[in-house]
């Protein structure tokens, strides 16, 4: 379990990040947006991503290709260095919050020891800022993926980007231009890891 900082109604708070379990994967399929909020493009996409991630998890689960902890991941890779495994990161509040799951990332470790991010999303309530204004969930999860890559000596994290998500990745990673895919490697990876080291001080 890792801790990262978010801002809640103007005050810094700790969010905890850990590997998701079957229960977490099931709970993603039950995400809803606040009743008083009209579904925006972002909230509707977030709901759909959560459902698709939950479905994909089930497929991998049946094949015995999911892991729910760092120890399990290490074990799988040690047992089969070319294993493809699926994982979920879930971010939870450490304070009393009506939003028990702030966001998630569904990603995979590929046969050549890279990470592929399929989905990364904040909860629709976080996007709609109801009832709390929480900032930093997405960037927090993204940097925790970098932390995992450091822990596992993974040199590349990549994923697809859409017209909506490309600007988020550009700003979060401090890079010039992202089109329909991104690769966090080399100097961008080093930069992100330096960021993490700065936070740990």
């Amino acid at each position, binding site marked *: 379990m890792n801790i990262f900082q978010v801002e809640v109604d103007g005050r810094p708070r700790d969010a905890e990040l850990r590997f998701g379990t079957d229960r977490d994967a099931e709970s993603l399929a039950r995400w809803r947006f606040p009743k008083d909020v009209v579904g925006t493009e972002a909230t509707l996409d977030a709901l759909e991503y959560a459902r698709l991630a939950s479905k994909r998890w089930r497929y991998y689960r049946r094949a015995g290709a999911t892991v729910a902890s760092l120890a399990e991941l290490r074990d799988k890779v040690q047992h089969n260095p070319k294993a493809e495994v699926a994982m979920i990161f879930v971010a939870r509040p450490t304070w009393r919050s009506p939003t028990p799951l702030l966001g998630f990332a569904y990603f995979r470790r590929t046969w050549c020891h890279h990470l592929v991010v399929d989905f990364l999303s*904040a909860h629709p309530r976080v996007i709609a800022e109801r009832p709390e204004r929480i*900032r930093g969930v997405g960037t927090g999860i993204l940097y925790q993926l970098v932390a995992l890559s450091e822990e596992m000596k993974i040199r590349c994290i990549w994923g697809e980007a859409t017209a909506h998500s490309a600007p988020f990745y550009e700003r979060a990673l*401090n890079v010039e231009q992202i089109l329909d895919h991104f690769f966090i490697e080399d100097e961008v990876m080093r930069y992100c890891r330096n960021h993490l080291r700065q936070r740990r001080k």
Partner: protein
Amino acid sequence: MKLKLKSRRLRSIEELWAVEDEFPAVCGPSPVSYAARYGLNLSKRYLEHLRRKANGNAKRPTPRRRKPASG
């Protein structure tokens, strides 16, 4: 395409928090292409949203009623 850093300056956590003020953290491939690629179904609500978007947010036409079977 290799990504190029804008600058090497490490940003404050407040600067990182501010990213999501402009761009919500909703990242992934297009749900349609993802669902098609892996043979998954999209939810009814999402399909309805896509239909509305394709029709310029027009309301869904009321379904035509079938005539009752004669006889």
